[in-house]
């Protein structure tokens, strides 16, 4: 099983029946395919729809129904169109239960940097700053290290912060880490991964409780091979 699939599978377990969820671009959009069928979760796209559905079949695309990246999406029966102010009113006003988004760095205070690399990549923050500041829960879903094994979970962010607000959870292909008042607590390791491996791939200080669980996900042996 590849890294992204592990992450998406584990994040999917955080979604609760009736939740309103916003998914960042990239990896987070893989989460819905791993949802248990018995729960009903609603997706918001910040460009203005509540009740987003998967991309429609070919020939059923509509130019006026897209996600925040401009890609075609669908809508559930009973979806609602909203303008940008209402969209962020839902986010800032505490109506958005969960946001899942990618990260460049997370630090020991649980602060996230994910919107620019000065002098190199300046796409803009889009809705990320409002989402991290406003959503009830924020999950950072990212690979544990950057290319070349460089840690992304570090003592203090070196890149410009997305928000001064602590994120709720970090989910990587190696671990589940919860930022708390005391620091970053290692909650789970991925199947087959040791606590030592996680610590080695992390430059931030990790608090290791007596019982670190294994992610309750089914890792398909064939894909993992």
């Amino acid at each position, binding site marked *: 099983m590849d890294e992204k699939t592990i992450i998406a599978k584990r994040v999917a377990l955080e979604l609760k029946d009736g939740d309103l969820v916003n998914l960042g671009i990239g990896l987070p959009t893989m989460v819905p395919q791993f949802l248990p069928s018995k729960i009903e979760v609603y997706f918001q796209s910040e*460009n203005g729809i509540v009740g987003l559905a998967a991309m429609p079949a070919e020939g059923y695309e509509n130019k*006026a129904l897209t996600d925040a990246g401009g890609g075609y999406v669908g809508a559930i029966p009973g979806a609602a*169109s909203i*303008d*940008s*102010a209402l969209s962020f009113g839902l986010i800032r006003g505490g109506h958005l239960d969960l946001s899942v988004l990618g990260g460049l760095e997370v630090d020991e205070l649980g602060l996230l940097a994910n919107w620019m690399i000065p002098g190199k990549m300046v796409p803009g*923050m889009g809705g990320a*700053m*409002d989402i991290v500041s406003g959503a009830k829960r924020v999950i950072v879903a990212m690979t544990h290290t950057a290319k070349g094994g460089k840690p992304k979970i570090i003592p203090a962010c070196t890149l410009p912060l997305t928000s*001064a607000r602590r994120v709720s959870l970090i989910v990587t292909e190696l671990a589940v880490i919860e930022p708390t008042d005391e620091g970053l607590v290692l909650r789970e390791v991925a199947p087959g991964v040791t606590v030592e491996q996680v610590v080695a791939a992390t430059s931030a200080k990790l608090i290791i409780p007596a019982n670190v669980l294994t992610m309750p996900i089914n890792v398909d042996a064939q894909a993992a091979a």
Partner: protein
Amino acid sequence: MNKSVSCAQAVEMIPDGASLMVGGFMGVGSPHRIINELVAQKKKDLTVICNDAGRPNYGIAHLISARLVKKLIATHIGLNQESQRQMIAGEMEIELIPQGTMAERIRAGGFGLGGVLTSTGIGTIVAEGKQVIEVDGKQFLLEKPLTADFALIGADRSDYRGNLEYSLTARNFNPLMAMAGRVVIAEPKTIVPMGVIPPDSVVTPFVCVNYIVEGAF
């Protein structure tokens, strides 16, 4: 009071150096005919307020490629490489602001409010140089209202008086900008007689709209 004008007439009203709010999100819901006409009439030194820089060959990317934009105020320019290139080369000034903040700043401009108090941006580089206001022990950034000389609105249907409807995610910033432009020009896909759009379906009331661009998309 007939508000209909041709697309060319509408754009002739816009002088070089004007500030423009342009509706749309990655080009979805943008007034594409007006954008093309701005390029055709070679308007210069524009200040453009738009969610993003569009996508290559779509939306306001046309204005940027044609080098008509002096300054862009946007939330995200990642899908248009040319805008990043112009920014890094110093050919276009770009001010990046959070999307929810942009929505409220435009709304505040159109609704006559003195500003926006948001926790978004507190403790980040977005807060630099801005006033922090404490309300009941919580800190908020004071973000100022945004207005523009012209608001260019992409709509689904308009009636002859200018009541506007939007379709799905093509709504986005359009209804907010329709309140905040000193002159508001709407580009609907269809124009219908008064009464065809029920009062409860109107998103932008007709009193906000100064001109309606004729002709189907």
